[in-house]
């Protein structure tokens, strides 16, 4: 008989007031009892709607059944068979718009906490998982550019098939956005490193400090004997609004602010990384990156942090849980507010952000509601820093140094359903193809590409 409690089993969280001043993880892992209790809410539906909502097709009811039986190791193996990074996905996937959105329990009450259960399995197994066995080498070499979610998942699948995989990373640490972008309090870096170490155990060679397009070109990788190349370089180029005042000291891209904080650990005394200490911060944008930047600013000591977003709460693309957490921590949400200028003092430092209030317009043909400014609504918000989190675009380093690679007008690689680009043997996936999206979609693309690369090399 399933557990018919309407709401998800709560997971322990740090008190908002306390966690807003530290970088420790906000949400704790389920205890064994909590996990068992939550697993009993799953109805084990025949048609498994949740699985269709997962970009990598995790066999959700199967692993939850194993949790119910207390066989966590088996549950973990089931997840791991289609998802290379369960500890990451359990924490950062937008479950509410994927697996959990399809859960029958969500019709009346809350869906099963699939994300929390996935994380539970991964964390439970963190110190128990047996070392992966190095597969028999098949004698073929594949190069992967970028060690973010798409690159790691592609590397993982190919290594398991026996390929000799080399991953090239531009930064000094592997992990891509998982390391430089998503903060410690949402995704502990030790968790990411554990996943990367798992790949190394599989025999994957990870080479940091390698900016492909500069130190080596894609063509040179082929000359070095790699038979296929996967490009998972993400969408690393920060967008700005092109409004006056964006060059003032105190205006940052979210990328810069988060990289200093997460990758370069500016919040820890023993690191040399400087970061600006601000008391009032405005973060422009409404996605996960905006939430991450706002909550990081708070943890770095800001007294007041605003989210400035031009649409309403409804349209905000951030994960619900992050918005909820941000509100609890005291972030001041200014919806329907659009910056028009950043104002500086005589030293060229930010002193305020000038905004217009907006109103929603009727939905257009696509059903999306636009916004238009309200006349005479101009107002200033006093701040000493502005962080732009309004999206990113793909980096041109590879496309500008690789002849014959087709990109669209936004600079994204054009690929077919197998992630094949316009060049034979060159595959691409993740944000470099879609523009800024989610970790799990990038992982899905990496998996698809791995399968296609395997076919391609086998049939050569």
């Amino acid at each position, binding site marked *: 008989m399933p557990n018919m409690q309407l709401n998800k089993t709560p997971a322990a969280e740090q008190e908002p007031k306390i966690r807003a001043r530290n970088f420790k993880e906000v949400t704790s892992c389920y205890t064994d009892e909590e996990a068992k209790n939550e697993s009993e809410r799953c109805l084990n539906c025949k048609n498994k709607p949740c699985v269709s909502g997962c970009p990598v097709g995790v066999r959700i009811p199967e692993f939850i059944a194993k949790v119910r039986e207390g066989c966590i190791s088996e549950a973990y193996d089931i997840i791991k068979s289609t998802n290379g990074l369960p500890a990451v996905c359990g924490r950062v996937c937008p479950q509410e718009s994927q697996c959990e959105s399809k859960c029958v329990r969500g019709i009346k009450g809350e869906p099963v906490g699939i994300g929390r259960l996935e994380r539970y399995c991964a964390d439970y197994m963190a110190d128990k998982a047996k070392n992966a066995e190095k597969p028999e080498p098949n004698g073929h070499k594949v190069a992967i550019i970028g060690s973010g979610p798409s690159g790691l998942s592609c590397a993982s699948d190919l290594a398991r098939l026996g390929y000799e995989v080399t991953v090239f990373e*531009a930064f000094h640490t592997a992990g891509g956005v998982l390391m430089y972008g998503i903060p410690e309090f949402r995704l502990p870096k030790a968790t990411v490193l554990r996943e990367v170490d798992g790949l190394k155990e599989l025999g994957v060679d990870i080479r940091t400090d390698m900016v492909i397009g500069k*130190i080596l070109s894609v063509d040179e990788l082929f000359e070095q004997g790699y038979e296929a190349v996967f490009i998972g370089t993400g969408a690393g180029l920060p967008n700005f609004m*092109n409004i006056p005042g964006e*060059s003032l000291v105190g205006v940052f891209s979210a990328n810069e602010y988060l990289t200093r904080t997460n990758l*370069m650990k500016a919040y820890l005394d023993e690191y*040399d990384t400087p970061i600006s200490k601000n008391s009032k911060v405005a973060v422009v944008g409404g996605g996960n990156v905006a939430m991450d930047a706002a909550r990081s600013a708070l943890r770095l000591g800001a007294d007041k942090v605003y989210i400035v977003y031009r649409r309403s709460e409804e349209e905000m693309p951030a994960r619900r849980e992050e918005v909820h957490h941000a509100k609890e921590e005291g972030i001041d949400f200014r919806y329907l507010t659009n910056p028009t200028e950043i104002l500086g003092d005589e030293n060229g430092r930010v002193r305020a952000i000038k905004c217009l209030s907006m109103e929603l317009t009727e939905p257009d043909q696509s059903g999306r509601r636009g916004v238009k400014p309200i006349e005479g609504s101009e107002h200033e918000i006093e701040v000493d820093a502005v962080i732009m989190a309004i999206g990113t675009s793909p980096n041109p380093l590879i496309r500008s140094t690789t002849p014959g690679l087709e990109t669209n007008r936004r600079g994204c690689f054009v690929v077919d359903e197998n992630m094949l680009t316009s060049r034979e043997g060159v595959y691409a996936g993740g944000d470099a193809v879609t523009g800024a999206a989610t970790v799990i979609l990038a992982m899905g693309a990496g998996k698809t590409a791995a399968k296609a690369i395997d076919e391609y090399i086998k049939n050569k």
Partner: protein
Amino acid sequence: MYKILKKRELNSQVTLMELEAPLIAKKAKAGQFVIFRIDEYGERIPLTVADYDREKGSVTIIFQKVGRSTMMLGNLNEGDCILDLVGPLGIPTEIPEGAKKVAVIGGGVGCAIAYPQAKALYNAGIEVDVIAGFRNKDIVILEEEMRAVSTNYYITTDDGSYGTKGFVTNKLQELIDAGNKYDCVIAIGPVPMMKFVCAVTKPYNIKTIVSLNPIMIDGTGMCGGCRVRVGGQIKYACVDGPDFDGHEVDFDELMKRNSAYRDQEAYDREHICRLTGGVRNA
């Protein structure tokens, strides 16, 4: 890990280091830069490549010990290693086609970056006038090296303790007045120097290339910290530069942006000098 093959003090504040980095050495060109990180706790610091030896597989950097990281780097010795070196980054210097005579101007440690430029031009058969400016005689660097790759070498010091007394801009004006026709001027040094060189060349419409070194993290266009206004447009020095048309650069804005962490840097300098002398965990 990247090994320090050679270390030479050029003056009390400026150090030359040759680092083992065969892949970077193979690709580096004049005008490009590298980013170093000493150890796990270090910052990422961009430095222009001063020289490279493709056969030996080494790149040379020349740096002034002004901040925490450069001081710590300066404390390392031959045989020691640094954790990270990334490059070559940025676009190599492009000399206008058909240039016959070029003036290369280096200010202080900027001569380290001007040197590979002068060398590349000189070896390409172009007439090269080098103007090297320093505050005083004690901090003169690369004199011999520069002389070897220039048609004419002029040195100025602010206090007149060596060469001609005055600024590089005075010498440049003098040379232009004397009838020298430059197809291009390359100016590398402190931002105010580059700004004033551009002010000298502007009335004569002499193409002037400057090399910028703003605050940056990744060097691949990702952080946007190095944005500079060029011709009214925002450019990223790391991927669009570091060279730009000096007549188009907003130097005043650049100077303000470069001061973003000045207070923190000053504190760090104090802190490191008194406590550890730049040795981590001492």
